[in-house]
């Protein structure tokens, strides 16, 4: 997909892919929602929907093409698995909180999972949302944070060091926090399945590696942006065990 589209953002797609795959293939029930607040990882969302049988091969291959609904940031409204257009950071968590509140008010079943990035947490509105969700007791909402440590133009500690450690910030807002290996299905699953108190809001901080699984991409800022050359693509596919 990314190679064919000559698209960037593959680093953050690979860091969040494991969590999105697990959620879509194993965790989520038909009444559940997934909101990709870090919209620049749309490729991983599409791949996860495909893996769950909710996107066809043909649909997947339209990624970023003219007339496609599979933009490089999600366009909501055309597919039940993509409820919202996201990409401007900090919006998805409030939208997710709204869905969770709406379901509670109308006594509808379902759980909302919202995936965010660590850099995204620098958007002030996120903390408005965390305050709101906790105050309203939205225990039908789970936040996952792709904590790969790299953002648009530097490392989190270089750009916004007081944000670290992330767990302490969530705890200060009254959230239950779990820190897990974001590339371990077993760890993510255990954190998702752990019981929570009534009205408890939970954040799962996924310790991840940007560009996970591809040696020349791992923990490299430039893979927030760069498309792959033919040689890089072939190497990447070999390293993740696929066939080009």
């Amino acid at each position, binding site marked *: 997909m990314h190679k064919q589209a000559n698209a960037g953002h593959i680093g953050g797609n690979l860091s969040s892919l494991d969590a999105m795959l697990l959620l879509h293939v194993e965790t989520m029930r038909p009444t559940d929602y997934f909101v990709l607040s870090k919209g620049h990882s749309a490729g991983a969302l599409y791949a996860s929907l495909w893996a769950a049988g909710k996107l066809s091969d043909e649909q997947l291959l339209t990624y970023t093409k003219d007339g496609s609904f599979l933009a490089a940031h999600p366009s*909501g*409204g055309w597919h039940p698995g993509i*409820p*919202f*257009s996201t990409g*401007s950071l*900090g*919006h998805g968590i*409030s*939208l*997710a*909180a*709204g*869905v*969770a*509140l*709406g*379901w509670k*008010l*109308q006594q*509808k079943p379902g759980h909302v999972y919202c995936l965010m990035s660590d850099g995204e947490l620098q958007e*002030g*509105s996120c903390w*408005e*949302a965390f*305050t*709101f969700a906790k*105050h*309203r007791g939205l225990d039908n909402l789970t936040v996952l944070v792709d904590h790969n440590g790299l953002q648009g133009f530097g490392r989190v500690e270089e750009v916004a060091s007081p944000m670290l450690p992330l767990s302490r910030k969530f705890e200060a807002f009254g959230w239950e926090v779990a820190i897990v290996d974001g590339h371990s299905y077993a760890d993510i699953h255990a954190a998702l399945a752990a019981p929570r108190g009534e009205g408890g809001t939970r954040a799962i901080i996924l310790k991840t590696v940007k560009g996970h699984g591809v040696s020349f991409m791992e923990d490299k800022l430039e893979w927030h942006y760069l498309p792959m050359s033919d040689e890089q693509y072939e190497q990447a596919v070999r390293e993740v065990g696929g066939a080009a």
Partner: protein
Amino acid sequence: MRNALCDTLLALYQRNRFLFMTGDLGFMALEPLRAVMGGDFVNAGVSEQNMVSVAAGVAHTGLQTWVYSIAPFAYARPFEQIRNDVCLHDLDVKIVGNGGGYAYGYMGATHHAIEDYGVMAALQNMTCHIPAFAGDVLPIAQKMQETRGPAYLRLGRHEMPAEAILPDYAPWRELLAGESGNIIVVGPVAGQAYQAVKSVTAKKGASFALWVLTELPVPELPHSLRESILQHPEKPLIVVEEHVAHGGAGMAICHLLAKLGASPRSFRHLHAVGYLKGIGYGTQQFHRKQSGIDAESVALLLEGLL
């Protein structure tokens, strides 16, 4: 109009359930609504960006949601949330801004909303309502409740003299008939234009047609106004609004006139000028005076056009 809104929403809630969210405002106005709505009345705190996106999320689940704040905090602070989360998804969220124009007066420029409906009307799927009279609030809010999709409601003050006869609500209304020219006025500043016309009539015997516009975008002019402009280009056309020129009703009217090939020989656009350097701040009426949209300034202009 804020109290009218509370009464109106109480009535509407009895008809159809909705969620009401406030950005921590409504003291001595919205308490009756809170008492009746219970859990459907949410104080979202001082967090307008989150409030609007949450409203979009709730609306997505099928429950219409109204959000409320002082006008600039309702439309400007969460602009991107309105654009992306409400309008792009065409969700059933109603944004209520209290104190449109210079209504918050000496509270200062941060509390004024003089570019609100131009900005909001630029957004896809958005309809803007600017009630001119307190009696407009109920029919407009009813229309908002019944019409699925985004809407912005700019509240002001009811300013019409008691003796004025107000026609039933419609997006366009002819408040006064007249032959000396056509005036189009947006929202509550209609009270100023009304006084101006009455003053000129009393002094000069001239009569101006006074049209009140309360909804944007403006798809077309009412038939009789359009014909008057087309058939009588010698008649001056004046647009009065408590909003900056750019994106305001005056520009929208010009666009319609250009499409019609109409060219009144005398066109005047009286609008909010913002804040003049070295002049300072004051009441709503002070700022209207600076902008030439108070009754006295409008009357002087009309006399000059005769």
